[in-house]
């Protein structure tokens, strides 16, 4: 019976570990194993992204060109077997949604660490920031910190619907969405806005905070900003009811 070579090396590693000491925690074991098999997953300096501090890449910049190519491929991928523009936007939205859910934790983690470092200098608030409870706090979180985390700048406008019938609608405007920089949709698909992906991210962030929402991206070009995009945030009825209760209770 032939033992596969990979299995054999794994066994020899674990044997070596037991020889050194059996009470090693399993995490250390697996780390050692990953260190001994350099490949695509382990860089040459043997530091995987899990070894780095989360704040390390805080101010790091990424190549815009590689993002553009990656996002272009994502759009091409989403375009396969779609029935129409709405279907394509739905797919892009679904690609962004899990990112929003995960990003929220990173955002909170980084904002707590900054506030604690600011705390040592200013010492105004003693508790770390809570997750937003009210709609306005949530929207400010998206408009400011989230946008800065994603694109390096705040969004351009935040508005509330003027009509009383659509009081659950809020608009976040980006004059020049980074994801659409190099994309020009063909003329027969001029309704398409690939920032539906960003809308998915917003939806994920809102859902992660416990606000049920539907977010969609719409083209609103102006003379000065040809790719101006409005993200329409529609909160669900339970959220609006809760909002009223919280308002009466005076919670901010």
């Amino acid at each position, binding site marked *: 019976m032939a033992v596969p070579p990979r299995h054999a090396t794994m066994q020899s590693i674990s044997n070596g570990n037991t020889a050194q000491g059996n009470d090693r925690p399993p995490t250390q074991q697996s780390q050692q194993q990953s260190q001994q098999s350099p490949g695509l997953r382990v860089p040459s300096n043997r530091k995987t992204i899990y070894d780095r501090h989360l704040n390390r890449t805080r101010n790091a910049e990424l190549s815009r060109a590689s993002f553009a190519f990656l996002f272009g*491929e994502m*759009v091409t991928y989403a375009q396969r077997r779609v029935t129409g523009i709405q279907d394509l936007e739905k797919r892009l939205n679904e690609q962004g949604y899990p990112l929003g859910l995960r990003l929220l934790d990173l955002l909170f983690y980084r904002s707590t660490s900054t506030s604690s470092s600011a705390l040592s200098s200013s010492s105004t608030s003693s508790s770390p920031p809570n997750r937003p409870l009210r709609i306005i706090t949530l929207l400010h979180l998206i408009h400011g910190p989230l946008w800065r985390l994603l694109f390096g700048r705040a969004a351009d406008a935040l508005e509330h619907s003027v009509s009383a019938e659509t009081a659950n609608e809020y608009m976040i405007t980006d004059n020049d969405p980074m994801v659409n920089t190099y*994309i020009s949709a*063909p003329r027969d698909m001029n309704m398409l806005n690939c920032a539906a992906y960003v809308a998915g991210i917003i939806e994920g962030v809102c859902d992660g905070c416990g606000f049920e929402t539907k977010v969609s991206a719409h083209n609103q070009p102006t003379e000065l900003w040809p790719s101006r995009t409005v993200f329409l945030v529609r909160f669900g009825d339970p959220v609006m009811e809760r909002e009223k209760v919280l308002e009466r209770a005076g919670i901010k």
Partner: protein
Amino acid sequence: MSDNTRGVFSLIIINKAGGLIYQREFQAGLRKLSTNDYLVLAGTFHGVHAITRSITPKIPIAQPTPSPATGTTGPAAPGYSYPNPGVPVSGLDYLETDKFRLTCFQTLTGTKFLLFTDPLTGSVEGIIQKIYELYADYVMKNPFYQIEMPVRCEAFDRHLGAWLRGRT
């Protein structure tokens, strides 16, 4: 208003198979050709470019006096080389009349940019480099653009026009 774009008349982009994929004029009052004529122009230029590249004369090396008339024999061929062996043969680079100048820039992938300018316009190389940059950005990074097909990218048109207008 035409003063700002003075010097640059029009741009043609030819794909590596010799097909016309982009044509745009930057000045009013140019004589228009029909779409078919532009396609013929692109195809003809592609052919002429290939011919000029293949007729680039070689100079003899090693042998001191080979006669070109007997150069058809096989063994003489390795004795010839291009004047600058390190530099690839480029073919037709520009074509000048007293009214306009046509500059051809071929990318490493075989796409050709043809720029028609005023003969007095300086730094045409710089203009073509910028056009190539815009092409690489707004055409090649556009997921809706199909390689080798006609360029219909609104962002490319917009940025190209804006850049040429802003250039003094």
